[in-house]
């Protein structure tokens, strides 16, 4: 799976709501079952290293201490760029009018 797409999906998840690592891992893995957990984790780490997300710790009642990820302004800019590129790609592919779940 294209790493750019995975990154876009993770950034979008963080844009919707601040999330903890396992939540992001689970949601992404459900959508892309063939992707290794470590790949998703690596992208999450890269997003953080690039300054697109910030972390904070919260302890829920009766739960483990969790590292939460939140989108930063830089991350928002990145999401906007990724979204623009994604829209371009989708529009370009859609222009061929390929039917949904097309199997030649």
């Amino acid at each position, binding site marked *: 799976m294209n*790493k750019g797409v995975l990154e876009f999906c993770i950034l979008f998840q963080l844009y919707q709501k601040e999330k*903890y*690592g*396992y*939540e992001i*891992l689970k949601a992404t*893995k459900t959508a892309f079952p063939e992707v*290794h*957990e*470590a*790949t998703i*984790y*690596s*992208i999450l780490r*890269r997003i953080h*290293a*690039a300054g697109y997300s910030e972390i904070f710790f919260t302890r829920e009642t009766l*739960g*483990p*201490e*969790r*590292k939460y990820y939140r989108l930063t302004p830089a991350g928002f800019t990145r999401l906007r760029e990724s979204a623009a590129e994604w829209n371009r790609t989708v529009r370009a592919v859609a222009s061929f009018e390929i039917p949904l779940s097309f199997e030649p």
Partner: protein
Amino acid sequence: MGQQEYLAALRRLLRTRLTKKETEIIVADYREYFESGLADGKSEEALCLEFGTPESTAQELFLQRQADTPQTGVPRIPGAPAPLRARVSFWAAVVMCFLLYMAFAWPLNSSPTHAVALSILLLTLILGFGFAERRNLLPAWTCSPAIYRIVSTQFYLTELSLTAAICLIFLQTDLRFSNEGLLTQAATFMCIGYRIFFILFFLSFVWNLLFHKNRIFLFGNLFFSFGVFFTALLLERQMQNISTLHITMETITGTYGAPFFPILLGIAGFLALAPLGKRWGARKLAT
């Protein structure tokens, strides 16, 4: 496989190629995922299956990291100091070359050009390896756990056996030689042997400093390389008045006390540091 075994295996695998700090961050994250998964009502076994084997996880992390390195590497600000690790490695290499020069040129009066050329060659090798390692240019097999284990075990055993050998030589209370020619040959042979061992130890020290940062091996290698170095010096000095060689325990501790003590110190330090290091490591893992 349970959570503890999974995390232990992952830590061991990651340590072969990542720094301790990075490894601990990743392991802590995976521990949190385990706890989150358990809170979701999944079993440890199911989570292990979900995360994939520790081997595949480590492999994937290495691959992703390798792919990321050129893009995410923070560009050095011109004029800013180099990262500490790079500086330490550089100075270690410089010190090593100086010592190599001493080992070759000083006691044996061999040609200085020879020594300088060899030093430059070794410096290039060490810095080249360090550079390749940092840029992830080394092939994966050089960093595999098996190679790491072989290399570290081998150094450990070599050090211990060599210390024993050196001690035995020194503890021979009455060394008398009748054949002068044979004695000269034997002494020359020993001098060359010690020099080679010195280089081996020092290379393993620098290797550890560059790649593994294993405290126990670092101290061990440093102590032993100096021990061997001084032993070589002692033997060469002894060779000068070779016709009257008659070593007793008194002459060793009296005249040649100085080289004897680094070795004792080395053994003591090594034996003291090994369990300490283990305990320190265990406490770090527990927190």
